[in-house]
């Protein structure tokens, strides 16, 4: 336990030392905290209508104005962040876990299993994400779960391929041969000896993937295929704002700015993580 | 004009790290005369790599030159501009690295690489190819004309190291730095390469700075030897003096440890107990003190590299004692 904690603190300290990493850490931290405590932070009810206050510009009482139903934009942005993370985190972690497991099995297992899994990955990847999403939405209707499912399915191959490549390079290294010479089982070799050496790379990939997923959720919601109204979502905000861009341009800002910030934040964090986790670079520290 | 080609004078180099300054080289002094083969011997952590990168000024960003000079043909290398250094590298000073498998660009033919390296010459491409083929023949590669069209992966490790030597000698450098060039090779190939290097050296009369941990190779090839330990020169001198009459306990122990010396089966081989000290946290006094059987109270002070006789230097208090006694 103390081992993993010290490792985490080494990584975090490494990230914080890099200016861009620090910015990424702050932005991501702010988004995560505001999402967790969204229900307590929001100044107004993000869903309830308040027609008399509709379409107001930014003011002291409504920092980012209100929409055509009189809902406070800032409150909707904060709640939207929660929705974005609710989609992004399970989708990314789910895809990573499944991709990692399948990828390691493909890389370490027999050739026929490798071929089979690679065929599965390629098949999954050959669906265009949006088309796939449209098909699934047409079948089961738009919802948060649908978005999570679609995103997860389409990003499994990426993690799977990376995990497979890493496993292939590690499988002939001497320490894995040494484990085999001691009679270690496949589960033990993969779980205890390979996993810790692969997870870092995938973690970096995951951090970089979060903004893609957030943008995808926003895109689907923009098309009306994502979360159902009145649930606030950054994509839905953008869509409402787009319709009223002449009357209330701040709605577009409210929906667009967090997407840009989240993208930058997670990307900075991911890139900085990559530098810290990369063992070749770490040796020189 | 003097015959000194390379002169290293009181060179101290640190690496800035999180744990504080790592004192990688301390007060290094030695020289290389024109046309001479000087061997640098030392075990891991002795500072060989830092020394080479300092001479070539190809140091890591956290390197700090604390003091001293590296003079090549009388000019201080450490004050040269990057542009001047580029002119020097690959023309006056060449290097052969340890790993022949990573020295060559895998996607270009050997001929192309040997032509590219002559970019300073005004000769035509055909002439350059001709020179390249002659050079390959000189390092003992059969059928060089045909071989020029091949890629690095079509050559064995021993062949690639010969090609690396051919490349390094192409510009007829005054100084060739050879960084453990035979360590990755089998003994039979090692011998072939060393003999070839000897022949080429006497033909072209370039000086060689030969870095190795293999005492047998050093003894066979070099005129003079510099022994390094933990970032300091502990002894330097003529190859016979170093091997037959070592004046520093580390040199003596190192030679004793080489099993090539011991011709009958030994149940217990000599060793040097202990570890190389932490360069970020140097002990006071002589750097070898903790592992030295002959250490005394005097060794709490750092012994200077003293001249014992013409061309033989050692950094050990024991030699001062002998002086006092005689």
């Amino acid at each position: 336990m103390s081992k993993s904690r010290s490792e985490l603190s080494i990584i975090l300290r490494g990230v914080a030392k890099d200016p861009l990493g620090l910015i990424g850490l702050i932005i991501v931290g702010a988004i995560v905290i505001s999402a967790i405590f969204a229900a307590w932070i929001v100044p107004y009810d993000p869903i309830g209508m308040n027609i008399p206050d509709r379409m107001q510009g930014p003011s002291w009482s409504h920092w980012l104005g209100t929409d055509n139903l009189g809902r406070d934009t800032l409150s909707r942005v904060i709640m939207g962040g929660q929705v974005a993370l609710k989609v992004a985190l399970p989708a990314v972690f789910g895809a990573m876990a499944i991709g990692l497991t399948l990828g390691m099995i493909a890389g370490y297992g027999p050739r026929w299993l490798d071929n089979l899994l690679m065929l599965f990955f390629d098949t999954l990847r050959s669906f265009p994400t949006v088309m796939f999403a449209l098909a699934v939405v047409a079948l089961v209707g738009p919802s948060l779960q649908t978005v999570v499912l679609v995103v997860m399915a389409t990003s499994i191959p990426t993690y799977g391929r990376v995990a497979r490549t890493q496993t292939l390079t590690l499988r002939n290294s001497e320490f894995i041969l040494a484990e085999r010479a001691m009679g270690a089982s496949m589960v033990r070799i993969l779980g205890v000896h390979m996993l810790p050496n692969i997870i870092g790379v995938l973690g970096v990939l995951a951090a970089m993937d979060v903004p893609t997923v957030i943008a995808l959720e926003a895109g689907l919601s923009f098309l009306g295929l994502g979360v159902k109204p009145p649930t606030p979502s950054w994509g839905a905000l953008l869509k409402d704002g787009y319709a009223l861009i002449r009357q209330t341009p701040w709605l577009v800002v409210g929906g667009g700015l967090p997407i840009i910030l989240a993208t930058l934040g997670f990307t900075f964090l991911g890139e900085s993580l990559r530098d810290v986790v990369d063992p070749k670079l770490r040796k020189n520290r | 004009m003097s015959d000194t080609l390379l002169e290293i004078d009181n060179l101290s180099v640190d690496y800035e790290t999180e744990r504080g300054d790592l004192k990688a080289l301390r007060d290094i002094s030695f020289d290389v005369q024109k046309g001479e083969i000087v061997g640098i011997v030392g075990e891991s952590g002795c500072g060989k790599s830092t020394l080479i990168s300092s001479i070539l000024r190809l140091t890591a960003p956290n390197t700090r030159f604390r003091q001293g000079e590296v003079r090549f043909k009388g000019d201080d290398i450490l004050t040269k501009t990057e542009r001047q250094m580029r002119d020097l590298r690959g023309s006056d000073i060449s290097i052969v690295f340890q790993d022949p498998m990573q020295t060559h660009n895998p996607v270009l033919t050997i001929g192309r690489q040997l032509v590219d390296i002559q970019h300073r010459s005004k000769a035509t491409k055909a002439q350059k190819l001709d020179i390249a083929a002659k050079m390959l023949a000189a390092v003992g590669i059969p059928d060089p004309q045909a071989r020029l069209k091949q890629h690095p992966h079509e050559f064995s490790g021993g062949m690639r190291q010969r090609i690396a030597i051919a490349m390094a000698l192409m510009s007829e450098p005054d100084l060739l730095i050879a960084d453990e060039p035979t360590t990755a090779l089998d003994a039979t190939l090692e011998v072939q390469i060393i003999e070839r290097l000897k022949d080429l050296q006497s033909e072209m009369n370039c000086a060689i700075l030969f870095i190795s941990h293999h005492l047998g190779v050093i003894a066979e090839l070099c005129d003079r030897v510099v022994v390094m330990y933990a970032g300091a020169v502990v002894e330097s001198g003529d190859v016979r003096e170093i091997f037959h009459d070592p004046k520093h306990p580390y040199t003596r122990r190192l030679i004793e440890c080489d099993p090539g010396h011991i011709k009958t089966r030994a149940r217990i081989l000599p060793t040097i107990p202990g570890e190389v000290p932490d360069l970020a946290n140097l002990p006071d006094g002589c750097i070898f003190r903790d592992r030295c059987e002959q250490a005394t109270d005097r060794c709490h002070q750092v012994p200077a590299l003293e001249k014992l006789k013409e061309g033989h230097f050692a950094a050990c208090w024991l030699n001062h004692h002998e002086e006092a006694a005689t």
Partner: protein
Amino acid sequence: MSAILDVNDLQTSYGSVNVLAGVSFSVQPGETYAMVGESGSGKTTVIRAIAGLAPAQAGSVKFDGQEIRGLSERAMRPLRKDIAMMFQDPIGSLSPRVTVRNLITEPYRIQGMKEKDIDAEAKRLLALVNLPSHFADRYPYQLSGGQARRVGVARALALEPKLILADEPTAGLDVSVQGELLNLLNDLRDRLGLSMVIITHNLNVVRHIADRMGILYLGRLVEEGSTEAIFDEPRHPYTHCLLSANPEPDPDAQLERIALKGEPPSLLMRPSGCEFRERCPVASDICLQTPKWEVNNDHGLRCLTPR
């Protein structure tokens, strides 16, 4: 006394590349056998094939009288207690994110020995290889080559094996540390009665640790005998070349060096007749015939023009 390891006509091919063309040797209990060869001679494949880590299409490997070639991982597992391996790269053969304590006690976990007191065992094993007990908390990257090699030895000894297969045990070690390792292995061998197979290209090391040795060329033994016999009266010209290609740490050494021509031929195009013919300094027309393996007074030889 019956052999602890008896290898007979072991053959390994990767596709059409015939890496081992029939290797036979045996190791008696308590004996150290050295297999010497240059890169590409197939020496690493020999021990990996014995341990079931490389394929072996034909031949037999008997450990303690039991045939082990071609056993499944599962059938091999109980035998892994008795056969320990050491790999070339001292640091690279240790799992990078595992502490020394868990590395050297890994064999207990793999063999399901839950009753062992891990901390006490780690201490005992570290003491066995002369490492201080606080090393238990270190990671491989915090070790020097010599220390990592000791950890590798400790791990190999954890289950008190009968046989150790070591691939270049002194590779990557400084001379001042190399002696320590050889002394340690010699001492352990005497105290624990281990048998060892050591693969190396370093003849200086062989002399001080091996009882018997074999010279491997292109996946075939060309000479075999007691270490003294090979060093004092080598009979195969290749052995001669190897012995003379060993630079002496003495600038005045008079070397009667026998020049070896060229480099080992490709395994894809094995020469006809004697496979060493093209590089041999004393080859003659008779060498166009294929030499047979002949044993005289415990000294095996595959040469038609021996010295």
